[in-house]
């Protein structure tokens, strides 16, 4: 008996040495654990054994070895039942634990068993077995009993008895951590299922926990409110989340989305700008919390729906949408800067692009990015830069163009589905559109430079490319695809451009023909119509011109939209007709 007592003491000392050491590894504890489990279970040693098991499992969990931890926990529960002489006859862990807990109620072991149960809770949470977690919450074991027991525990630690085995992690802190993590994960799960979880989340946000976790609760509340169509309250929640944890970039992103929904473009651009600069800071995506702590909260926050709620697009994607927003909402110079930054980032040696976009990319294809940037440069009156970009695009695509593109029936295409095959098959068309758009932009550039001959040349190249696409002219189907729409737009714009250029060098017949064709290809084109009128006027067909102008009066040039590529829209870059002058002309004509 004396020997056994001294052995117990030495084991306890060993445990304490290991627990207070700076390097915690489950394997050193596991050895101790094994030596303890080699002897038959006994009440005297149970205290020590449970402590060692607790330490081992904490270390396992810290290294994400949940299976090992769970196995050890189950074995321990079974040993406990052996001591109590109770056999539930099942290996279901929840039944085991219930029985084990019942058997030790009122004894000194109760606290230890409870802390092990907490670990089991953590393992379930980490493995996203939420029903098991919920079961235990319904047992209300943790809520009801924890308070008293932990108080007891606090009293004991004050006594500082030397031979009490040290635990590597205070069970109270573990419980706190698990509570808020459970609230977050459950919140996220229910949110994706469409439930309202506001009250639970708001209760959790008041609990003592790391800032990052509190921020998550605010964030989830915000998402919940956004679902409930209360964008302003959602914005408030996101703001709170950001105030709690400034590194919560997700809140920023969600705010930007809400601003976009509210069509508050200035605020959206601002949010995107801040988001981008935060994403560029090192290691912002990883919540660098609990650096000194043994168990990181991220261990328990591995639910699928949570991570999809917390996901933030990459810095490059954010930069692209920022640039696009700027250009569309007439902050062209900012947009140009963003585009140039984006292109520089893509060209640079470092592999950010690879890193972030490995899984899925929201960025458009590179040539399209180039063309968008070119359009922005054109709008910013930097035609030389725009032409350089277009040259790049043309250089890389020109010799890949098909001789002829035959578009199938849209119905047949829809049947074929949007698989990879069709993507590959349409590549020819897509490339052709890129090249044509590049020529169109170059034509715009030359017309901006008032080099009309060159402009005509480039518009002609664009048109020549576009007529290579053959398709059945079925009745205007809105689902005919963006590509076909872009094709029509490009055709209309290039013809209009050439017509305007012809008009500038006084080849009015060609101008009239092109503008007429342009109106056929793209009836909504405003500048084409105005110029059509102008050419008619110059050809002394003033009545027709007046009629044409009257028509265009009602609808001004539409502002840019996000639905189509910027370069396929009217950029107002070319020579403009002064509307006052037109009015004057009409009035001259008026009396007749």
């Amino acid at each position, binding site marked *: 008996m004396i020997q056994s007592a001294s052995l117990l003491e030495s084991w306890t000392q060993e445990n304490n040495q290991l627990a207070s050491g700076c390097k915690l590894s489950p394997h050193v504890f596991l050895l101790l654990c094994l030596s303890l489990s080699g002897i038959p279970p006994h009440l005297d040693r149970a205290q020590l054994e449970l402590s060692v098991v607790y330490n081992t499992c904490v270390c396992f969990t810290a290294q994400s070895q949940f299976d090992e931890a769970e196995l050890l926990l189950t074995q321990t529960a079974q040993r406990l039942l052996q001591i109590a002489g109770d056999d539930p006859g099942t290996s279901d862990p929840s039944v085991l634990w219930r029985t084990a807990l019942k058997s030790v109620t009122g004894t000194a072991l109760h606290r230890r068993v409870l802390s092990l149960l907490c670990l089991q809770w953590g393992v379930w949470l980490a493995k996203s077995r939420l029903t098991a977690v919920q079961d235990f919450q319904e047992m209300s074991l943790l809520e009801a009993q924890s308070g008293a027991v932990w108080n007891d525990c606090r009293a004991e630690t004050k006594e500082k008895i030397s031979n009490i085995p040290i635990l590597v992690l205070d069970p109270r802190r573990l419980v706190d951590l698990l509570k808020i993590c459970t609230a977050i994960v459950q919140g996220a799960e229910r949110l994706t299922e469409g439930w309202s979880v506001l009250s639970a989340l708001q209760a959790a946000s008041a609990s003592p926990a790391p800032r990052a976790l509190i921020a998550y609760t605010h964030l989830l509340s915000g998402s919940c409110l956004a679902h409930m169509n209360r964008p302003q309250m959602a914005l408030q929640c996101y703001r709170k989340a950001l105030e709690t944890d400034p590194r919560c970039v997700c809140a920023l992103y969600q705010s930007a989305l809400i601003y976009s929904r509210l069509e508050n473009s200035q605020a959206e651009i601002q949010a995107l700008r801040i988001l981008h600069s935060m994403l560029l800071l090192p290691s912002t995506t990883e919540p660098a919390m609990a650096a000194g702590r043994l168990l990181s909260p991220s261990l328990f926050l591995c639910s699928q729906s949570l991570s999809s709620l917390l996901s933030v697009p990459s810095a490059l994607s954010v930069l692209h949408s920022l640039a696009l927003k700027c250009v569309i909402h007439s902050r062209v110079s900012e947009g140009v800067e963003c585009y140039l930054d984006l292109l520089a980032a893509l060209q640079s040696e470092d*592999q950010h692009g*690879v890193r972030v976009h490995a899984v899925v990319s929201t*960025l458009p294809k*590179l*040539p399209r990015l180039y063309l968008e940037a070119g359009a922005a440069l054109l709008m910013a009156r930097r035609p030389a830069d725009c032409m350089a970009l277009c040259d790049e695009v043309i250089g*890389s695509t020109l010799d*890949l163009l098909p001789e002829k593109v035959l578009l199938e029936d849209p119905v047949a295409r829809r049947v074929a589905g949007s698989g990879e095959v069709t993507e590959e098959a349409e*590549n020819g068309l897509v490339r052709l559109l890129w090249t044509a758009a590049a020529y169109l932009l170059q034509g715009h550039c030359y017309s901006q430079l008032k080099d009309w001959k060159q402009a005509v040349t480039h518009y002609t190249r664009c048109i020549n490319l576009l007529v290579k696409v053959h398709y059945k002219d079925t009745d205007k189907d809105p689902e005919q695809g963006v590509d076909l729409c872009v094709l029509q737009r490009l055709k209309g714009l290039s013809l209009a451009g050439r017509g305007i250029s012809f008009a500038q060098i006084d080849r009015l017949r060609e101008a009239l023909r092109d503008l007429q064709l342009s109106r056929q290809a793209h009836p909504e084109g405003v500048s084409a119509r105005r110029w059509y009128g102008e050419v008619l006027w110059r050809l002394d067909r003033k009545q027709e011109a007046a009629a044409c102008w009257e028509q265009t009066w009602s609808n001004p040039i539409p502002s840019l939209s996000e639905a189509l590529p910027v370069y396929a829209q009217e950029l107002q870059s070319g020579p403009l007709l002064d509307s006052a002058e037109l009015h004057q002309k009409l009035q001259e004509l008026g009396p007749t």
Partner: protein
Amino acid sequence: MMEGRCAAESWAEFGLLGKSGTPLVKCGTGTDVFICTGGEEVYVFTAQEKTLRAVLQMPAAVRDVVVSHDEQLLFVACWSGVYCVNVQLLVPRASSLLVVGSVLLTLCRTDASWSLTLYQIQRTSQSDPCDLLASFSLPLVSPKVQSDAESRCVLVCVYPGNLMPASSPPHPLRSHYPLQPLLFRRLFGAEAALSKSPVVLCGLPDGRLSFLPLRIPGSRLRILHSLEQSVVFVGASAVMETDAGCAGCLIALGKQGRAVLIRAGRAGLEGGGGTRFTLGCVPGPVECACMDQSRVYYSTGSDLLMVDLWDGSSGTAGRQGDKEDEASRSNPAAFLTPISLNVSGVVALHQPTYSSAGEVQLLSLSVRGRLQSIRLPVRTQEDSLSKRPSSQVGRSVGDILSAIGDICERASVLKTIIRSKNQILKQLNQVMNISFLLSNRSESDLKPVRCRGSVRWSRLLQRDSLNLTCVLENLSPFILERGWTLSVTVLPLSCPLEAGGEASSVNYSFPFSGLGPEESVEVSLPVATAGDASFPVTVTCSLLFSLWRFLGQEEATAPLDLQSACFSLPLNTLTVDWLDALRLSDPPAPARSSSSPADLLQGFISSRQLRCRGGGQASRPEEYSARVRVSSELLRDALGLAPGSPRVSLLEWLLSEGCGGVKMERKGIKTDGSSSVICGSAPDNATVKLTAEEVNVEEKTKPLVTVEVQVKSSSVAAVCGLHHAVMRRIQTLLQKAGSSRVVPTADLRLALQQAEEQRGQVWEASSVGVSSGQTPPLLLRVYQQLRDGPLLIL
């Protein structure tokens, strides 16, 4: 204290400890244990799986090992300095590495896919030395195909134009190739070209050649081509002089020698301008390969070969432009003709380097682990030869002579192989001839190759045995060459009841070497021993030919079973029956004047036995007999016997004439003149007596002279067997005589009546006997009646 023994478990063996360093064991990251045995290696061992994960080879003996606090770096102190090893990067199963700029790529096979993983190598910050950037995966085609997990993958990097990274060293990097911009665009698309992204090409062991543009957001591994055999080498070659250092052609070599050349088609030729994939083949297997501007060097293991890709005939294909180029493209086999460099056993090659004199130098590792430097001569052009200094000429002559010797040796080996193959073809022709000859005949025809047999009793070790001598005669015009085997199967038609009633056959094989036309070969085999009554015996002869003869392999190493690799041609079938096996003895009365005392003794004993039997009629229950009657006229006609004594001649004929192809070798039948009685002993040692006498039978129309053969013995088996044998012979006699005879019908009716009566008895016997157990005696009686009331054979 603690009870029981402590357990020491052996985890791994690291050999003897070295002397120069310090033995160490340290725990490291996770479950890793670092072990140093005092030599230059640090072993990384996982305690969890108990396997060796890595061996780090240090340049000098290891003194100490320490793990950094974040457990990412391992510092190893050697005699030569302190080295820093990144422990994190010990990626399991990484099969290939490539460094592109500041990115390290590893390709490894997981259970279901190939995964290409990118790590950032940050040279400046020590805190996080290798940052995982991204991982791309490509599913395996099928797990079965890729069982060759050991085979290496090929990783190379290509750049558009001459856009090699600025930080690259002046000399060309291995596995990094600048590619002609046009080819690059066509292969990898506009996006890759626009981003000027380096593209990683992976050659996988399943033959797929996949690519990944590094700098394009959202790019993924895609398949460029499939070689359908393990990719061994991927390289690029500068074809045109106009390429200005860019390679215009991408080459991939497969393990079995398949090669694909990827070039850009001419612009405008086919609209979009495709890529030309030219398939070719070089003699495989390709162990390893490397290439310089236009030549591929590869090793088959037995020889190092050089393929000049663009040499064509005159070496000016590249310069003369497209016309010849087109020709070589259209004829892919033409341009992949390797030139032997006569170096064997090369298993690894490094990229060729050039000396100032223009010599190509290859660094190779041989299969025996030797590092070799292979120096190739300057390309053999006349002008360069003439300029060579005289000292070099002598050396080069020596080189050429040794090369000639080498080639001669190989040529002679090849000649021998060709000769032996021709020989085999000839033999095969003969074999086929014989096979057709023998297999086309029906059973009744006499085959041109056949067996004759004769039996003889012989005595060995006090034991009499019946030996069959089989003579294989080749009457065909073809030679049975070496490789044929005569296979003889001896199968008793019946066998004693105590053996289970199942006759088991015995097989004898006699390989013989060459049997010309009109030649014969004689083999001898035991058929039965004395006391063995399992006659008649069928002897089936067949000729076997094993195809393994042709392969030069003996049967021991043959992977196929003998049956499936054989021609088996059945010959004729011989029968050895009781008459053949009958041992004649003198008629009982006079004693023989034999020579040897043993024979004398045996004779004495047997005569005593006979006398005993003869005297002791009372002791023996009965003597069995069977009779056969044949008309004398028939015998005379069939046998052509002298009219005087048909009975003697009948007996003689019965005993001597080979029927079923087997002849008994007897010195002469001694019959007792007038009585015409033959005594002998059957194989089961029973005494038998054969008598033949002339009997006049009263037919209804006219008297008929017949010869009656009677078999008498105390053994039922002997009587049955001999009766059967006699009947068989007479049957053949009848077949010979033909069917022109008139059969009297009245007699037949009587015989029919008798037969019916006996059938009734048999039926009665079987029905009665079931209850009373009297079946055998009853049946025996019926049998006796049948045999005693013989039918007359006309």
